[in-house]
């Protein structure tokens, strides 16, 4: 790394901050624009995000393989402890900055087509901008407190966007569930922060990373922070909110619940990797492995096109967490980047299918669930472009050679290979299960594409289905191109290309050819197997319901909670209400007495005074009635009295 930055600091800072604040500006514009011109946001938001993306590109170009850029300001001081806000840009965060802004830009422009005609465009684009801002905040923040703040903001904007169609009760419920699940994880995060502060007296990432000794409190702190990751990245056991979150608009699913927000957990893992002790890492790896397996198998049985992708996302996130736990955060980050592109692409393609079918549905008034793959089939001829995009991004997901997913998966597998060691241990199991996940991934991806585009033509295929508009096709194209191997490295079989080299902090893990060959042949085998069993669906309600995790929650968490609530409600009614009622009655009696006193005594005096004043007033007023003759009368009257007075 260069000792001195080779870039113009002022320009660099301007770019970094415009990348950060332009989405916020987009949010403000979307909110402030008048209802009449709300269609304008479909132009302003993608444009601002494009500017942000360009700025992020400059930032990435400037910081890549350079000295990390840091800058801090004091935020506030409490009891002698100063809290700072700051920016910390190294390779990881600069790369993430570009990925987030780019995908956000693409999703924004995609949304311009997808959400056309939505009555609440302002809120939608506003929250997209706000989400992007919060996400970028996580990415570039230099201390964990700030990360936590943006972490919560991200959760909030995710809540808003999942529940965008708030009139749909399912969407509202899903938004609530996502929010609550995230809260559960965030409690852990917060406790972790407290532990950190108590021991290290700092939230700054750089300060924290310098102390390297492994201590027991670090284990505790890192595991607590990992709780936040579990919640945000939908790891086992807090993953079930992610499939439900698919109730939101599809571009939102692409941006938040596939590419960026859920990846924030993985990003955080990579960012605070130095905190994790070996024990904590083992725990992380185990969690990731379980999640990956669970998501992959659950995806096999799903029928909803978006739910398949959601479970696939869970599985891939588990894969990344597994890689991070296996001591290869750079492999996890690589997979994060590639996954962000191809999964966003898959979601957008799925959105295109849904969009097309929705339009067809609206024209034909033929009710069916446009997201259910059992109703779809043979759409290849109707939607050739979408089919092509699906093929490309699906191949990347499956990890076929010549696609980016293959390389990043290779990186993970290679790191696992080294990690498992030579002697047999439980790590072998995890290594094996990684292959199982890879195999299953091919199966469900193939099943998804086959049942939607190939297969027998269902009745829906005869509707007049048209390709999505240009504003949707362009982002898909860009993302499809980004799903090719070229984004990772020039050699389609060697992952240690330009990205990986920048992410790697040591040179421990290198390309292992055997893994590449094994992986490639394994994937092709899986593909052949998938073709053999094509059209068949595993009808397992256990898989369909993702191993009944939700039901277990219901039994383990919900029911005792409700019972507890009932018990407390009963005590509340009997005991506390009783006391309250007694107090209320006593108060009532006092109030009545006071009221009587008030009416009879105080009001009486006041009323009498008022009546007296009124009487005097009306009496004197009667002289002033404006009646001339009465004036004369009173004048004469006074004169007569005066005369009588003088006479007597």
């Amino acid at each position, binding site marked *: 790394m260069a000792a001195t930055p080779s870039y113009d600091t002022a320009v660099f800072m301007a770019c970094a901050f415009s990348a950060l604040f332009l989405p916020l500006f987009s949010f403000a514009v979307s909110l402030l624009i008048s209802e009449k011109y709300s269609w304008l946001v479909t132009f302003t938001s993608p444009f601002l995000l494009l500017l942000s993306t360009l700025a992020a590109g400059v930032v990435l170009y400037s910081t890549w393989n350079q000295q990390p850029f840091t800058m801090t300001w004091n935020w506030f001081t409490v009891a002698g402890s100063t809290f700072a806000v700051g920016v910390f840009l190294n390779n990881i965060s600069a790369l993430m900055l570009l990925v987030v802004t780019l995908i956000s830009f693409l999703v924004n422009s995609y949304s311009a087509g997808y959400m056309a005609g939505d009555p609440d465009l302002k809120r939608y684009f506003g929250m997209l901008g706000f989400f992007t801002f919060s996400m970028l905040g996580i990415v570039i923040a230099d201390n964990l407190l700030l990360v936590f703040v943006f972490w919560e903001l991200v959760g909030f904007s995710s809540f808003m966007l999942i529940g965008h169609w708030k009139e749909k009760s399912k969407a509202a419920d899903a938004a609530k569930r996502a929010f609550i699940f995230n809260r559960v994880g965030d409690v852990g995060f917060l406790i972790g922060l407290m532990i950190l502060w108590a021991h290290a007296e700092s939230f700054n990432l750089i300060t924290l990373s310098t102390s390297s000794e492994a201590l027991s409190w670090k284990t505790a702190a890192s595991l607590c922070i990992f709780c936040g990751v579990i919640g945000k990245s939908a790891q086992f056991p807090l993953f079930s909110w992610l499939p439900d979150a698919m109730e939101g608009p599809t571009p939102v699913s692409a941006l938040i619940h596939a590419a960026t927000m859920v990846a924030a957990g993985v990003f955080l893992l990579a960012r605070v990797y130095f905190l994790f002790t070996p024990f904590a890492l083992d725990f992380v790896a185990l969690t990731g492995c379980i999640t990956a397996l669970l998501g992959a198998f659950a995806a096999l049985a799903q029928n909803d096109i978006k739910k398949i992708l959601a479970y696939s996302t869970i599985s891939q996130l588990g894969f990344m967490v597994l890689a991070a736990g296996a001591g290869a955060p750079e492999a996890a980050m690589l997979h994060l980047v590639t996954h962000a592109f191809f999964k966003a692409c898959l979601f957008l393609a799925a959105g295109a299918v849904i969009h097309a079918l929705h339009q067809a549905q609206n024209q034909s008034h033929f009710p069916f669930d446009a997201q259910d793959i059992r109703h779809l089939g043979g759409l290849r001829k109707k939607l050739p472009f979408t089919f092509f995009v699906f093929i490309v991004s699906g191949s990347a997901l499956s990890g076929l050679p010549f696609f980016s997913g293959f390389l990043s998966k290779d990186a993970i597998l290679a790191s696992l290979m080294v990690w498992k060691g030579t002697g047999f241990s439980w790590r072998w199991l995890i290594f094996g299960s990684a292959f199982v996940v890879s195999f299953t991934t091919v199966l469900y991806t193939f099943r998804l594409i086959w049942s939607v585009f190939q297969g027998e033509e269902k009745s829906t295929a005869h509707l007049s289905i048209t390709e999505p508009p240009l504003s949707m096709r362009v982002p898909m194209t860009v993302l499809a191109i980004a799903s090719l191997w070229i984004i990772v490295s020039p050699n389609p079989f060697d992952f240690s290309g330009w990205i990986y080299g920048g992410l790697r902090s040591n040179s421990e893990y290198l390309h292992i050819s055997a893994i590449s060959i094994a992986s490639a042949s394994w994937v092709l085998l899986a593909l052949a197997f998938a073709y053999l069993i094509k059209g068949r669906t595993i009808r397992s309600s256990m898989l369909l319901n993702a191993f009944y995790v939700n039901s277990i929650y219901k039994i383990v968490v919900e029911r005792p909670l409700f019972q507890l609530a009932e018990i407390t409600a009963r005590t509340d009614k009997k005991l506390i209400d009783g006391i309250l009622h007694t107090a209320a009655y006593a108060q009532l009696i006092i109030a009545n007495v006071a009221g009587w006193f008030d009416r009879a005594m105080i009001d009486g005096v006041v009323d009498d005074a008022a009546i007296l004043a009124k009487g005097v007033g009306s009496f004197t007023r009667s002289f002033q*009635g404006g009646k001339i003759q009465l004036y*004369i009368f009173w004048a*004469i009257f006074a004169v007569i009295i005066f005369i009588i007075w003088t006479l007597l």
Partner: protein
Amino acid sequence: MFPIAHFLYLGAFLFSAGLVIVIVKKNMIMVLLGIELMLNASNLNLVTFNQLYPDSIQGQMFALFVIIVAVSEAAVGLAIVIKVYHYYQTSVPDEINELKD
């Protein structure tokens, strides 16, 4: 020649009657009539007391000027009555309470 008191009683009566008319009547012209009556009562007193001083004529002169003033008053008063009538469409002074606070 005639008892002074008889003149005075008549003047007192006329004045009182005028006062009652001024207070009681609801028509402004009637009120004016009442005022004329009161003026005449005062004139009567002036003329009457002038009898007590045969060498002077001031009482009668005063009565003359009272008549002059009464003429002016009647003319202006009637003009005002007519104007008020045009303005308020009423000649009832009770209904005109612009002097009210």
